[in-house]
């Protein structure tokens, strides 16, 4: 067991090489979201006036179901890491900060999971 402090261990080793992960995740998810958004508005337009059978038939297409599920998942991820920055910028006191960050994670994943499951059920459900 080393008697060195954590700071002494970290000194001189350079950065943790993880500083740009969040920045890059924001860029990748925004580009993915932008492309999938074109498909989303196409879907909205295609489903205007559609009855229940037509909606199920639309999502029965594997292409439509995969793109719709990706649209929901990518945006759930993008909104999670986006709201994380907003909370970190304005809320500095723990435990409020920690609880809000957790609530953000729970809410975003709930929205994403609910949306993706609904699309899977619409696509595969009898």
């Amino acid at each position: 067991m080393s008697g060195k402090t954590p700071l002494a261990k970290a000194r001189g080793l350079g950065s943790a090489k993880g500083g740009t992960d969040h920045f890059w995740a924001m860029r990748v998810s925004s580009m993915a979201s932008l492309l999938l958004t074109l498909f989303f508005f196409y879907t909205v337009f295609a489903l205007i006036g559609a009855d229940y059978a037509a909606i199920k038939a639309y999502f029965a297409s594997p292409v439509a179901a995969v793109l719709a599920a990706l649209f929901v998942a990518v945006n759930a991820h993008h909104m999670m890491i986006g709201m994380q920055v907003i909370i970190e910028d304005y809320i500095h006191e723990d435990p409020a900060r920690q609880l809000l960050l957790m609530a953000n994670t729970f809410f975003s994943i709930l929205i994403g999971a609910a949306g993706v499951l609904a699309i899977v059920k619409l696509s595969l459900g009898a």
Partner: protein
Amino acid sequence: MAQAKSKAARPLSPHLQIFRPWMSMMMSIMHRVTGAAAYFGFALLAWWLTAAASGPEQLDFVNGVFRSALGQAALIGLTWVYVHHAVGGVRHMIWDSGRGFTKPSINLLARASIVSSVLITAAIWAGIFAKAGVI
């Protein structure tokens, strides 16, 4: 930093209230505000999808809410919010590529994102209303 609490009333650097609001600053604020609004608006999509997966009656109920005057106003507003955030995102991609940093181009991008977000929103809803037979 996160836990810093100063007891003495130390001078602060100039903040929002001391600056004249200018275009790029307002657009930066709008990008964050529209992002936060879209965050909660996205729950409406999950609601619609969950209702559609639950059955025709549940879907009819959500469609009824969305077709009400308040529902339509909310959806049109959220469409603009979403489109504005998307267009603002494209603006950031242009900056990320190292372009568009001169003062005229920053102001041009700011104006272009307001105008294009309104035009795109109008086009989307004109298409929706036309297909629904409302106009």
